[in-house]
């Protein structure tokens, strides 16, 4: 047995020398919080698909209208209510993209439009629905951008001032927020419509007045918490000015919460605009918004379902993808907040 033949003696051993330097060595690669967060985000399938859909919709919203030679408000009564018809795909019967309507009539043939292709069909005034849907999406994206900008500028600044200065300032600022939250959104919008006109401007103003309160509260809470953190106290004892404490210590630590919060404000703002347009308080014709398109198509839902289908699908996709991305960002930026 070879095991028995080998006698263990001291010569076989060597002392394992550990210098004190080795003891403190960290072999793992150094990663910053943001590198870690990015890795976590890209590992999340939902978030990645959300991101891809958002990018795709963004591109289509601005490039889509260029594919058609029709403007979003070009009317033509000779081509009203055409169902969708897409080259190549028209040959695949079950997709229903062959220009045949729900009663089995080929509308393109009937209305002498045999050479034309309207990918999303046309509406009751003969306007190209493909262009109108992407124009409407542009409005939704404008609202998304606006909501995020208002959150970042007004909400963050308001919350930071309130939380950082505290005391009486905080007290007054918080009472103002409570009053704003107490007024229903719809009332603010209606008031704005009375002063201005229905349209994108009144929705914008209504959002500027009330849209930032959630963000302000979250930022304030975070700042209040950070104020008593020992690393902030350490900075104070070193003699740091307020500007340094805010920019070096507080903002980098609340940026995650800010991003997460605006990721959830965006879809709700988009939905609010669509809803207002749907009930006729938002965008007025001929401008299209996803909400007003659904409203128009809604009247003839049973005969021309394509008029409702496309805007409804797009708005759902936007909502779902923002929520997926928001969830992913929350998990990536703040693992403690995970449900």
């Amino acid at each position, binding site marked *: 047995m070879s095991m028995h033949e080998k006698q263990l003696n001291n010569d076989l051993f060597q002392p394992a020398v550990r210098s*004190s*330097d080795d003891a*403190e*060595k*960290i072999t*793992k690669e*150094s*990663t*910053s*919080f943001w590198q870690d967060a990015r890795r976590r985000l890209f590992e999340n399938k939902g978030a990645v698909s959300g991101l891809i859909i958002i990018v795709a919709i963004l591109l289509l919203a601005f490039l889509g209208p260029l594919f058609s030679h029709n403007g979003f408000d070009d009317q033509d009564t000779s081509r009203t209510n055409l169902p969708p018809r897409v080259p190549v795909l028209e040959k695949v019967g079950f997709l229903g993209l062959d220009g045949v309507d729900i009663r089995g009539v080929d509308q393109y043939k009937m209305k002498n439009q045999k050479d034309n292709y309207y990918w999303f069909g046309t509406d009751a005034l003969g306007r190209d629905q493909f262009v109108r849907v992407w124009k409407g999406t542009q409005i939704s994206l404008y609202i998304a951008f606006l909501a995020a900008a208002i959150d970042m500028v007004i909400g963050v600044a308001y919350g930071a001032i309130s939380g950082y200065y505290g005391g009486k300032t905080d007290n007054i600022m918080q009472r103002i927020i409570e009053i704003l939250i107490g007024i229903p959104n719809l009332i603010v919008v209606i008031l704005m419509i009375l002063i201005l006109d229905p349209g994108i401007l009144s929705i914008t103003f209504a959002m500027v007045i009330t849209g930032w309160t959630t963000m302000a509260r979250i930022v304030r809470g975070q700042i209040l918490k950070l104020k008593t*953190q*020992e*690393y902030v*106290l*350490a*900075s*104070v*004892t*070193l*003699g*740091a000015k307020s500007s*340094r404490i805010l920019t*070096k*210590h507080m903002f*980098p*630590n609340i940026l995650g919460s800010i991003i997460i919060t605006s990721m959830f404000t965006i879809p709700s703002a988009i939905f609010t605009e669509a809803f207002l347009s749907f009930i006729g308080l938002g965008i007025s014709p001929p401008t299209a918004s996803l909400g007003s398109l659904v409203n128009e198509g809604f009247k003839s839902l049973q005969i021309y379902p394509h008029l409702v289908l496309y805007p409804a699908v797009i708005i759902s996709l936007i909502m779902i993808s923002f929520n997926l991305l928001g969830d992913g960002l929350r998990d990536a930026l703040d693992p403690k907040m995970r449900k």
Partner: protein
Amino acid sequence: MAVVEREKLLEVKNLKKHFNVGKNAVLKAVDNVSFDIYKGETLGLVGESGCGKSTTGRTIIRLYEATGGNVTFEGKDVHGKKSRKDLKSFNRRMQMIFQDPYASLNPRMTIKDIIAEGIDIHGLAKNDKERMERVYELLETVGLNRAHASRYPHEFSGGQRQRIGIARALAVDPDFIIADEPISALDVSIQAQVVNLMMKLQKERGLTYLFIAHDLSMVKHISDRVGVMYLGNIVELAESDELYEEPLHPYTQALLSAIPVPDPEVERSRERIILEGDLPSPISPPSGCRFRTRCPHAMDVCASKEPKWLEAREGHWVACHLYDNELNTENKQQ
């Protein structure tokens, strides 16, 4: 120990810090605390959780505004209005080490930026190269290596983080450091490492420490003198050997009796003084002597009269009626 004329570095007189909690309720976290700290010494401050040790330290360093009393550092008033320049020079001379190594380093900053914060604020380095040299030097001073400079706090252990916190404080070359329970969040095996580092730095740089802790055994090792706090008051202050051998205040006696002795013979016969009751609320502390609700020697006077802060023996101060000779002779005469 020979009493040499020692130079006072810090004088705390009747320091008060009250917090307003809710309507009309005042929490007297620190109430009439007085002590001196001499140049080059370590003053230990011990007491149960919530007795106001951190508040004392934070008020001294101006993190909190004092409600009353005053603090003088080298003859200059610490509190009160100051010009930016005075404030800056004060910030450089007095520094603090914090309790929680996981909360005292900004998770979004690299170690080099954390350590260099004081250098940046006070403009102590002319250029980036000099700044990095200082950072490396400080890292080596606290027993870490250069390679750590570009890492983030979450990659370090508690003991390492605490040493980074020490390096940050040292970056501005302070004379006086308030260490607020710097080791209580660490493993026992790491505690000695940090304490030894602090003692080494003290020797090399002539630092003065206010060392806050909640157990007496570690404080004894590092402190020259020890003050014992109870409910916002200092109840006893003495040279640490003297305090351990002959504690005068009943509260100190109880605290000391709870420390196990590393000798089985003594340990077996050791008598423990078990304190009755809980720590009273600092919002409505007991009248007279604050310790009377739990004191085994409480007398009638204790409820009506606040004990005076007396030098019972040379350099051994205590606040307890048992050692108030005036009061005792009064009692005998009656």
